């Protein structure tokens, strides 16, 4: 819901004259003004439908009207001179009655309900003052469903606000959750038991105002909201950089919730982000340094005290001439920069494969230098036309996909003004628009979860998609290079897309690194630039692979492969691998050969699987969830994350290990690191070296920041049971663990005031214990957080800049005899390594497979389930076959679910049915 810039108006609430926004309804106005008005069915991101009748107020025609009439605030516009009363006794009585009705069948099982203590229904019940039960009849009961590993179902608690289906169906486009039955026998669930299919199912937990849908992962290590310490963080599972709250208790990460950010995630997260956190609790997580005495005879790594390990390493490194550093797109900017400082620019690798590195640099170039601005998720959501090239966003940048799904309503919504329907009036909007959709064109290798809202889709090999994109760009602006040989139907499609984009007010072009084909990125740039040259206010958005891909790309490192494959003479240099599972970046034989040359191999990580056989030293890194640092998201926005857990003994943030290694190895580079005690110290250094990153320190207040001399508590204030916080270990009241890194405290003590937005540890306000309390942190409902610091946008579009288009569009992707083009098919669950270690996510990871169009499968004489052999230079694999009608012909898809076999794709491969065993 966007704010209009119309002038404000005066409304009268209980005799007070206040300023309001005429683009909003009375409920929004009242909440924005700080009045407590209860509601259920309305949701800031979903608008009004007037079902629950909880937000009733009394409206008066004019000053002389004493009687007034009850209206639903959420269904009534704020108009100049509107007079309402919230306190009116009839209105209050009605609101209390609504709660009474909702409670008739409610089980009152708060003590055993996971929602208890942060329940919107509890809050609203208290708010309306309904306290005693008059209904003496029996209650209705339901059977619950098993909805899979993420969400628990307890239908008896349902208050029929319809938010779940409205989110799941109308917002997220899910088809398998609905409401069945009628009257007071409504059932919200699936037709039959089974895993919720939508990749946004976890939002049900937050959208549901009571305990019908709760977080199943939380319930396995449950704690109440007030017993957990929460910390603002950034999701580390894709490049979008959604803001999250991480909640911890007693050293166990308990859950992830949405941290509202007006420009990125808004109110919703994807399931990978919400349920991927359990890698932090992984039993095999590296927590102690370890050293291998020798490489002979497979001697194993022996755990050691940190000081001892560092000392031994110092000895080993002292004679070494050089250290090679392998950075990481899943490590913080600071840790990567520390490594770069230690090893020097020319020995610093970005830690990405050739392809990844090339693509990230390309995207950086497009965003930095091009005339099309890089759009945030919410800007994409406001687009009125979109072209997606190559990327299956539901799997690579789900939150962006969710935004695009909403964007198709923007163009049809322009009629609403004529019909006099406000945008917040969701039921009327949906009636008026009647499923009309604005232009969205999707070109991908196979079907995507957005196809149902697409105007048209087209399928092809990545090159063909790029070729089509280039042709669209040429059509929009003839200076953009032409694509060769277009068929008639293609020409038609191209004209249609070009017209739709060029006639839009705010079109967006979206692409990414998912296909492994650089031309897809270039084609997207050409289209966006062509639009800008035509004077259209187009934006561009890219999906990259990991949470800091763009950040590490900014540090001018080098890609891995080139040196790795040529096996350059390293003269047995040392190597530091920073938070990087190189098996995902290089083919195993190449990797082994390469690592062979280094001595010692030093690994700083928290993922045990990432430690190669060749590792000589292992230092346990604090994962993002347990450390402080900065990430740069796909938009080019730098954001801060904070540690959600007190420091664990022996575990350090990577940059500290690096600094200490430098010290122990007496490296020259230590000089510039010697004063690095806090993140701010590194920020100064980064800002000095990289002009683009000069504002890197502004993403959040520095560590010494205080509000009235107080730190910001990570735990909600509690008026009793103060000692209960570390109760699991001790009932005494130990000194809370120190957190010198940030203005946050591991304590319930500290300022009660609202901190600056990057430091908000949880949403809670007086009388608002549930996450709906976020309303109290916004000046205007659905707008930015109060004094929002949205992070630092690193690139500003050079809107008047004229830069050359990418030339030499690729030719048509010709079929080869007996060969198929093998392309990577990233999967939401499995493609990202950290979330893949979470037990709930693991249940959702598909089996590795090759996906074929049924016709290609026929030609190859294979069917679903058969095993097939893939061979190409440097690649031999046997995998089961999946068939998919939507898969482009002549292309085979390799599901990206964990191993590194896709790093060199796309590639021409020979497929042969495996001899049956």
């Amino acid at each position, binding site marked *: 819901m966007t704010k209009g810039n119309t002038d404000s108006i005066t409304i009268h609430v209980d005799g007070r004259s206040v300023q309001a926004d005429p683009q909003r309804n009375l409920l929004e106005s009242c909440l924005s003004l700080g009045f407590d008005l209860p509601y259920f069915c309305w949701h800031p991101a979903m608008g009004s439908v007037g079902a629950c009748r909880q937000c009733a107020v009394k409206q008066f025609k004019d000053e002389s009207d004493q009687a007034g009439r009850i209206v639903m605030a959420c269904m009534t516009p704020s108009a100049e001179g509107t007079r309402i009363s919230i306190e009116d006794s009839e209105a209050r009585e009605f609101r209390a009655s609504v709660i009474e009705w909702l409670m008739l069948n409610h089980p009152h099982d708060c003590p055993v309900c996971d929602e208890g203590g942060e329940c919107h229904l509890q809050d609203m019940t208290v708010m309306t003052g309904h306290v005693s039960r008059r209904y003496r009849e029996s209650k209705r009961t339901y059977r619950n469903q098993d909805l899979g590993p993420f969400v628990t179902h307890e239908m008896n608690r349902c208050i029929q606000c319809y938010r779940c289906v409205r989110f799941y169906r109308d917002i997220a486009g899910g088809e398998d959750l609905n409401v069945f039955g009628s009257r007071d026998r409504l059932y919200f669930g699936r037709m039959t038991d089974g895993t919720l299919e939508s990749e946004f199912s976890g939002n049900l937990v937050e959208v549901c105002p009571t305990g019908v849908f709760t977080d199943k992962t939380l319930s396995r290590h449950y704690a109440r909201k007030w017993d957990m310490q929460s910390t603002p963080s950034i999701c580390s599972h894709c490049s979008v950089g959604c803001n999250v709250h991480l909640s911890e208790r007693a050293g166990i990460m308990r859950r992830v919730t949405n941290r509202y950010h007006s420009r990125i995630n808004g109110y919703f997260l994807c399931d990978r982000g919400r349920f991927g956190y359990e890698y932090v609790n992984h039993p095999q997580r590296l927590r102690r340094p370890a050293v291998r005495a020798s490489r002979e005879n497979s001697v194993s790594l022996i755990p050691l005290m940190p000081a001892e390990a560092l000392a031994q390493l110092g000895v080993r490194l002292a004679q070494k001439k050089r250290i090679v550093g392998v950075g990481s797109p899943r490590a913080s900017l600071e840790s990567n920069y520390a490594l770069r400082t230690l090893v020097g620019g020319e020995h610093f690798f970005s830690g990405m494969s050739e392809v990844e590195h090339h693509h990230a640099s390309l995207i950086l170039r497009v965003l930095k230098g091009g005339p099309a601005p890089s759009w945030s998720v919410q800007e994409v959501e406001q687009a009125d036309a979109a072209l997606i090239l190559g990327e299956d966003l539901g799997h690579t940048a789900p939150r962006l996909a969710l935004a695009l799904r909403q964007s198709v309503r923007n163009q049809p919504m322009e009629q609403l003004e004529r*019909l006099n329907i406000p945008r917040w009036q969701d039921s009327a909007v949906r009636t008026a628009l009647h499923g009309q959709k604005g232009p969205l064109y999707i070109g991908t290798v196979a079907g995507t979860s957005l196809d149902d809202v697409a105007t048209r889709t087209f399928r092809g090999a990545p090159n063909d998609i790029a070729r089509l994109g280039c042709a669209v760009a040429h059509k929009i602006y003839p200076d953009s290079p032409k694509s060769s040989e277009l068929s008639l139907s293609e020409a038609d499609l191209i004209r249609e897309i070009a017209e739709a984009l060029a006639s839009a007010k705010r079109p967006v072009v979206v692409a990414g690194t998912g296909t492994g084909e650089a031309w897809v990125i270039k084609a997207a740039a050409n289209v966006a630039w062509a639009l800008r040259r035509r004077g259209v206010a187009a934006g561009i958005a890219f999906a990259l692979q990991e949470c800091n891909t763009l950040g590490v790309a900014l540090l001018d490192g080098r890609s891995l492969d080139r040196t790795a494959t040529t096996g350059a003479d390293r003269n047995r240099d040392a190597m530091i691998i920073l938070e990087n599972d190189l098996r995902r970046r290089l083919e195993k034989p190449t990797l082994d050969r390469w690592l062979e040359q280094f001595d010692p191999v030093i690994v700083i990580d928290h993922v045990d699987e990432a430690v190669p056989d060749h590792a000589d030293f292992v230092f346990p890194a604090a994962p993002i969830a347990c450390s402080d640092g900065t990430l740069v998201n796909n938009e080019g926005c730098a954001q801060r994350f904070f540690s959600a857990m007190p420091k664990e003994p022996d575990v350090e943030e990577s940059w500290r290990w690096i600094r200490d290694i430098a010290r122990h190895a007496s490296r020259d580079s230590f000089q510039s690191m010697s004063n690095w005690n806090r993140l701010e110290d590194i920020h100064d250094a980064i800002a000095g070296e990289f002009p683009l990153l000069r504002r890197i320190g502004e993403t959040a207040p520095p560590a010494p920041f205080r509000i009235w001399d107080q730190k910001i508590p990570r735990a909600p204030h509690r008026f009793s049971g103060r000692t209960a916080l570390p109760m699991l270990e001790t009932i005494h009241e130990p000194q809370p663990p120190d957190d010198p890194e940030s203005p946050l405290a591991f304590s319930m003590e500290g300022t009660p005031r609202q901190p600056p937005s990057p430091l908000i540890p949880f949403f809670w306000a007086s009388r608002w214990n549930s996450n709906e309390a976020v309303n109290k942190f916004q000046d205007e409902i659905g707008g930015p957080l109060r004094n929002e610091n949205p992070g630092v946008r690193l690139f500003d579009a050079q809107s008047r800049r004229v830069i050359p288009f990418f030339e030499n569009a690729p030719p048509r992707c010709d079929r080869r005899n007996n060969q198929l083009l093998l392309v990577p098919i990233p999967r939401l669950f499995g493609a990202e390594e950290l979330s893949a270690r979470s037990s709930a996510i693991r249940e959702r990871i598909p089996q590795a497979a090759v996906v074929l169009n049924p016709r290609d499968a026929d030609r190859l004489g294979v069917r679903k389930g058969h095993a097939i052999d893939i061979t190409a230079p440097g690649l031999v694999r046997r995998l089961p076959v999946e068939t998919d009608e939507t898969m482009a012909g002549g292309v085979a898809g390799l599901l990206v679910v964990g191993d590194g076999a896709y790093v060199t794709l796309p590639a021409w491969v020979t497929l042969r049915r495996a001899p049956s065993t």
Partner: protein
Amino acid sequence: MNDDRPLTGQIRRHGPPPTLSEYEDCGGYAPVRTMLSHMTPEDVQQEVMNSNLRGRGGAGFPTGQKWSFVPMGADAPRPKYLVVNADEMEPGSFKDRLLLEGHPHRLIEGIIIAAYAIQAECAYVFVRWAYHPSVIALGRAIREARETGLLGHNLLGSGFSLTVHVHTSAGRYICGEETALLNALEGHPVIPRSKPPYPQVCGLWGKPTIVQNVETVCNLPHILAHGAKWFRNLGKGKDAGTKLYAVSGRVKQPGVWELPIGTSMREILEHHAGGMQEGYAFRAMQPGGGSTGFLTEDHLDLAMDFDSLSSVGSRLGTGTAIVLDDRTCPVGFVRNLEHFFAQESCGWCTPCRDGLPWVERLLADIDNGNGRPQDVEILERHVTLLGPGRTYCAHAPGAMEPLKSALRYFRSDFDRHIHDQRCPWKSQGTEA
């Protein structure tokens, strides 16, 4: 044409409905022929406006006025739709069935007129599931009309085209609410829509649509045939035309009759329904179906028209009266009604979905001798709490009309149930 009973004069009480040629022999479809060749849509709208025809589906909205909101002219969105509401599920109502079964051609003629007036090219007749004979009769009549060129492409060479489809429902009273009906027709979840947008502008599939009750539509042919003035004069009071009135309950001859609108209840009851059965005395009645407030002996001489009945806190509704006799428990009566309304709630808004079942169960408690003194107060509160404007549609307010008037007229019966802890109408020891 039977002048004082234009709606039903040609209906044979025990026999098949008039065929197309039989109907044409009595002047049927002549108005349509004249209309197509001599009248513009605006002329038709004007005539209906002048006739002062008010909707017979319950709300009494002036039909001509409803049509005037439909966008006309070359730029109007297309297609436009006409929907005939033949859902008739209100307890006590059975008047539309007579028209559907007895004279489908008149309905079709009415449809052509209404569709022409708003330039709709497609019409749906939304018939409740239980009316199988109606569906068969309608289907036959539509076929005949199509074969004669009265329906289909380019009607009688006029350039106007119209298709008519019969849609049968699968139960549920709420489908009769006009916006819920549109959702039902579209196959969408059956929940009323919020207005605006009004169906006249944005209805079926987002296109201009009018929804009209069967009886309303059946009035159109003779309005065109005889003119607005003639039609206005058919009524006895302020309202125009004739009305189908019905009576059910313990009367000698339950049935439905076409009478001048504004006829008194006493005349209908005594004259047409033959008075009360032997051994039963009149106690009260709902004048227009289950969702209208009770009236008593004192009101029998009121004119059964829209304004007279609202002036005493009731409604004409569908004009189909249900009579409560002295040997029937009024608490049981209301309990039965509220059971209906609770069960037929669509489940969208809280007061209706959860308030009505509570009302029903309280009434059951009282009826069964388990009532408590505070129950009546809770019931009274519900009358206000579920009143107009507080629920999403008119279903729950409709349910409160009989309860409200029952608490007023039968208060002592409620109190007696609670005081005696039993229903005075049930012999001791038995329970319903």
